[in-house]
């Protein structure tokens, strides 16, 4: 079987064709495997803040491994086959640790690529989002300062997040390893992630080594606010459609 990260790189033009063939083939597995999404821009598009070598290894190898390892869990955990990646996050506590780590790794990195854009192409916070940020933190800069503290203060591997909580308020939080705020884990501040920053050392070590704060500072130039705005709007719309502030339990 072709590793997914290679498929994304080498066979992307053929992907639609392959997918159609898979649908027709009776011997195809009954489940849909999770797939590594291609980077939404070339690997060098985020230079100089994030170098092309880091992006290539991070996407193809690290993210690729999370996807492959998650798929390797499907047979032992058949419930995975019928869950979307999003839906999996909210039920992660009922799965083994390998699903939590790799399912989280897949979701978090898919999110990470999407909330970045080449410098100057990420737009700006929408009026609605900016109002929510200002209302909660005082200013965009104050939010960024708090986010930077969460990102720099995460000891070991993990993520910093701007989230929209179930009550509609915004918050800054951080998670260890590949956990995220969608997960039904004890002690975790839950909400819909609007913006998440990878502070595993693999995200920045080739270029910044021990200087994580420099990486965090440079990263703000890459934020794809257009995507953050979309995520905020989607979270607000979902909350409006389901008026209860407590998410339904399975």
């Amino acid at each position: 079987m072709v590793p997914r990260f290679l498929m994304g790189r080498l066979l992307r033009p053929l992907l639609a064709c392959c997918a159609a063939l898979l649908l027709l083939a009776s011997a195809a597995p009954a489940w849909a495997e999770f797939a590594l999404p291609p980077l939404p821009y070339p690997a060098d598009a985020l230079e100089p803040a994030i170098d092309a070598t880091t992006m290539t290894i991070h996407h193809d190898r690290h993210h690729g491994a999370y996807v492959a390892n998650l798929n390797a869990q499907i047979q032992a955990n058949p419930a995975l086959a019928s869950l979307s990646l999003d839906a999996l996050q909210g039920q992660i506590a009922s799965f083994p640790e390998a699903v939590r780590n790799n399912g989280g790794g897949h979701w978090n990195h898919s999110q990470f690529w999407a909330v970045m854009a080449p410098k100057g192409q990420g737009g700006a916070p929408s009026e609605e989002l900016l109002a929510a940020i200002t209302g909660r933190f005082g200013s965009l800069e104050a939010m960024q300062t708090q986010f930077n503290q969460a990102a720099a203060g995460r000891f070991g591997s993990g993520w910093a997040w701007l989230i929209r909580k179930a009550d509609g308020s915004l918050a800054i939080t951080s998670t260890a390893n590949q956990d995220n705020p969608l997960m039904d884990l004890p002690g975790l501040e839950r909400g819909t992630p609007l913006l998440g920053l990878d502070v595993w050392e693999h995200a920045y070590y080739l270029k910044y080594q021990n200087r994580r704060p420099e990486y965090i500072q440079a990263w703000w130039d890459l934020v794809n606010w257009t995507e953050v705005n979309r995520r905020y709007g989607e979270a607000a719309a979902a909350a409006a459609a389901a008026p209860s502030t407590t998410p339904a339990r399975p």
Partner: protein
Amino acid sequence: MAHTLPALPYGLDALEPHISRQTLEFHHGKHHNAYVTNLNNLVAGTELEGKSLDDTITAVAGDAGKAGVFNNAAQVWNHSFYWQCIKPGGGGTPTGALLDKINADFGSFEKFVEAFKAAGATQFGSGWAWLVLDNGTLKVTKTANADLPLAHGQKALLTMDVWEHAYYLDYQNRRPDYITTFLDKLVNWDFVAANLAAA
């Protein structure tokens, strides 16, 4: 007395090509050094000032309110220990009482290697793999982030740093290659044997 950064027991390029000079410069000169600085800043003016590193660690282990002290103190301990666990021309197989004990407690040296490799490879995120003495028995363990055997009543004999900063410049995502090299080319078995003899 303030905590200090111990000098490396070998030159910065002594572990080439297995661990590069650049990695050691950052790992010892920046990471380890920062833990020492942070620890001294955190304990200054507190009841922990002047305590030994071991006493500091055991005093704050498990105290969520002292996580910052624990993390930095434990990382000072872990790194000071790690530098002694490796040496130029290391690796291979131990001898004497240590080998006998490994054979007795793991079944064979190969089984120890298998367990140690697995511990290092499966420590998800940042952390350490260990050979410890636990109530008289050798065991392989793994700990997350700064956690260490001292906090679990175990005696550390050997450690391997699997924070990404320990190997990323040289091996990137290939942690298993770093682990294999660590065992084949770097382990200072004399140090491990001395730790067992002193236990």
